[in-house]
Each structure stands twice: as C-alpha cells, then as structure tokens.
C-alpha cells in the first residue's frame, strides 16, 4: 500500500468535514522533519459533521484497524466523541473527538491555521500548540519529536 494523506484530506474536504490536522502530520506540515504513519484528524463532534464524516469514511473504505477489522465506523461511533483508529484505502486515519486534556475541536480552532494546498484548504494545529501538547504528555516516545518541534519553533522566532 502507498499511503496518501493528501487523498484522505481531499476526501474530507470534498465532504466538507470540519476538522483540524493534529499530531505528526501537523508537525510535518508545520516544518518538523519527523516521521508518522497515520493521519490524526480532530473532528467537530456534531450531528451534521458526523453525517459528513461518515460519507467521507465510506468513500475511503474505512474500517477499524484493530485485528484487521471488517467493521465500519458509524455515525453513532463518531458522536460518542472518542478515538476511532481506522485503516482506509489511502492509509491509517485516526478520527479524534478530543486530544490532550479533553480538548475538543471547538477548544483548539483558535490555535490552528488554515493551510492551502492543491487538494484544498484545511486547518492545522499551530506549531506552538503542538509543542504545548507534546510537553504536556511527557511520554518518552514524544521527547525526540518535541526536540525537533522546539528547534523549528526557535528558528521561526529567530527569522522573525
């Protein structure tokens, strides 16, 4: 499989899903040369958005990753507001109802920015917030990534 995060993002956009790219892919877009294998999308948990998201996930042939599941995510699953770890035909996708300390889409939209690509426009968590999120977790696996994020942030400040 050749994962294509751009294909996933394009389909989310086509279905007008409200989401913020967070996690490793957000770090990459913000300029951090780190590696991640899945796309983390913090979604607005609402009736309308869940309906749009179900359509996008259908087009992506999304299934739960656990045990090579054949089970499709439902609107009810999305409205539960938790984490859905999915495999799509374009690669792994984590649909998140919250991140960090129970922070939801509405809480973080102010610390995200719109990014324009050929596939469309979408929101990405700001670098400063990515750093804050990583600092808050304190997990060993995040330390190397945090080091890079802080370096990118430092250089960005130096340039301004």
């Amino acid at each position, binding site marked *: *499989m*050749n*994962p*294509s*995060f*751009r294909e996933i993002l394009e389909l989310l956009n086509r279905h007008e899903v409200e989401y913020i790219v*967070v*996690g490793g*892919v957000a770090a*990459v*877009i913000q*300029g*951090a*040369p*780190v*590696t*991640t*294998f*899945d796309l*983390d999308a913090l979604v607005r948990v609402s009736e309308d958005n869940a309906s749009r998201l179900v359509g996008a996930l259908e087009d992506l042939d999304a299934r739960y*990753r*656990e*045990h*090579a599941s054949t089970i499709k995510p439902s609107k009810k699953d999305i409205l539960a507001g938790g*984490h859905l*770890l999915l*495999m799509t035909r374009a*690669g*792994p996708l*984590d649909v*998140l109802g919250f*991140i*960090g300390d129970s922070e939801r889409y509405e809480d973080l939209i102010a610390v995200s920015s719109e*990014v324009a*690509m*050929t*596939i469309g426009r979408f929101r*990405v968590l700001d670098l400063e917030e990515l750093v804050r*999120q*990583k600092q*808050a*977790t304190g997990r060993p*696996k995040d330390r*190397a*990534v945090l*080091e*890079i994020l802080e*370096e*990118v942030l430092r*250089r960005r400040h130096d340039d301004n």
Partner: protein
Amino acid sequence: MQDPRNIAASSAGHDGSLVDWFSTLSPEQRLAELESRISFFYSLRLTDESELSRDSRTPQ
C-alpha cells in the same frame, strides 16, 4: 533495530541542517516527502498494518 518513527527526528537532533532543508519546502512538499518516506518504510516491511493495530496510543 531503531524504530523508523524516530529516524528523521534523531537525525535532525544531530544535524540541524535537516530542519533547515525542510523549512525550505512548502507545506504540500513536506507532506509529499513524508508520504514518500512512509512508502519506503512499507517497501522495507519496517511497518505493517498489524503494527498500526497495536498502536492504540493517544495521538498527542
């Protein structure tokens, strides 16, 4: 074997030029570069779907 997730990070930790180079790319080019890197890892079978299934971490 080193976790492939940390290769880029650890490389940049020792050599800031990787960060400098990455900053010259557009956001879309950065995403394309990541996809290219992942495809490489998949081709080496350094990761697979079963590994991702076990990865039930909190993303942040």
